[in-house]
């Protein structure tokens, strides 16, 4: 009997780039760049999101992220966090491309400060423009299968629906729509935002997502490096469970030991 005890070379590909880690981590909110780097290391992430901000002219010699997390070893995914209009996001990513020299970017266009919920009209508009300009945008979006499809048609290289509002740590609020997005997508789907703890990450992977993107869940844990390890394990466990195919749920008990031969 052939028993597939190990999953060989489980990898995923976005815009022609192949990765083995399915965990993408943010680099915001850490107490120090040292802690940030240690957490990235522990997470096993091969992609980190970064923000584009003004250089502090009054003190340009402050330690830089690139001194702690080597962009040659870890793929920097520039994001547009903080942008509330398509034009702002596009402008930010044009600068990011010039600073980093690559086209793979994370697009997010927010609708309001209170919920940081995506503005899908602006997000779609920005996606169309970015694709025309040769960018490969991984796009943060609402957990709406129709919006996800529209983004894919516009040229998004990955669909990244929120599990819950950014930084909330509430976990996946709508399993049904995340699953529908996964089933309908022809590009990778990653849950982006809302993960609070390891079980949330495992749940996203069990739903069939290609990966999970998180920041606050690790950075605001009491022990970020330990939580980064937990997330690595959770993403791997969830992926394996998805590949293994879970048992059907039953309404009542079913004994595990044989009934035959009972004394």
């Amino acid at each position: 009997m052939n028993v597939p005890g190990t999953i060989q070379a489980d990898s995923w590909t976005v815009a022609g780039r192949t990765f083995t880690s399915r965990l993408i981590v943010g680099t915001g909110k850490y107490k120090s760049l040292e802690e940030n780097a240690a957490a990235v290391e522990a997470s096993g992430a091969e992609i980190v999101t970064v923000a584009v901000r003004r250089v502090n002219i009054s003190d340009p010699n402050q330690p830089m992220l690139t001194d702690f997390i080597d962009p040659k070893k870890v793929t920097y995914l520039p994001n547009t966090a903080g942008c509330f209009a398509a034009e702002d996001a596009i402008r930010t990513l044009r600068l990011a491309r010039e600073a980093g020299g690559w086209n793979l970017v994370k697009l997010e266009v927010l609708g309001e400060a209170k919920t940081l919920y995506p503005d899908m009209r602006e997000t779609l508009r920005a996606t169309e423009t970015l694709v025309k300009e040769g960018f490969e945008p991984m796009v943060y979006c609402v957990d709406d299968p129709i919006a996800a499809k529209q983004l894919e048609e516009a040229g998004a290289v990955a669909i990244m629906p929120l599990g819950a509002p950014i930084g909330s740590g509430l976990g996946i609020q709508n399993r049904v729509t995340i699953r529908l997005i996964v089933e309908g997508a022809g590009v990778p789907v990653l849950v982006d935002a809302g993960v609070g703890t390891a079980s949330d990450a495992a749940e996203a992977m069990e739903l069939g997502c290609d990966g999970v993107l998180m920041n606050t869940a690790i950075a605001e844990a009491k022990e970020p490096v330990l939580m980064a390890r937990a997330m690595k394990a959770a993403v791997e466990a969830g992926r394996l469970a998805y590949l293994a195919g879970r048992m059907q749920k039953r309404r009542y008990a079913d004994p595990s030991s044989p009934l035959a031969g009972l004394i």
Partner: protein
Amino acid sequence: MQTSAAASTPQTFAGGFALLRPRSYFGRVMELQESIAIHVNGGLARVPVGVTIAEMLGELGIDPKKVAVERNLAIVPRSSFGEVRVEEGDQYEVVHFVGGG
């Protein structure tokens, strides 16, 4: 025309920090040359007539390999930092990657 007395006083940004430090390259040049007003990252600054973007970044202590520059809302390719001259009233954004989600 910038006087030498004024040139020895660093020009300050709206945020209160100085672009041109005393005894700087620009400071010395400004004693001899006319200067122009520009905006860098939201603050006002004065630089001598004729400097390139590369010279402006050098004076600021910024490694051009680690930043991107936008001039009047248009990207300036890094390869042309040494050629593009700073002009009166230019608006610059000088950005880099920082931690983010």
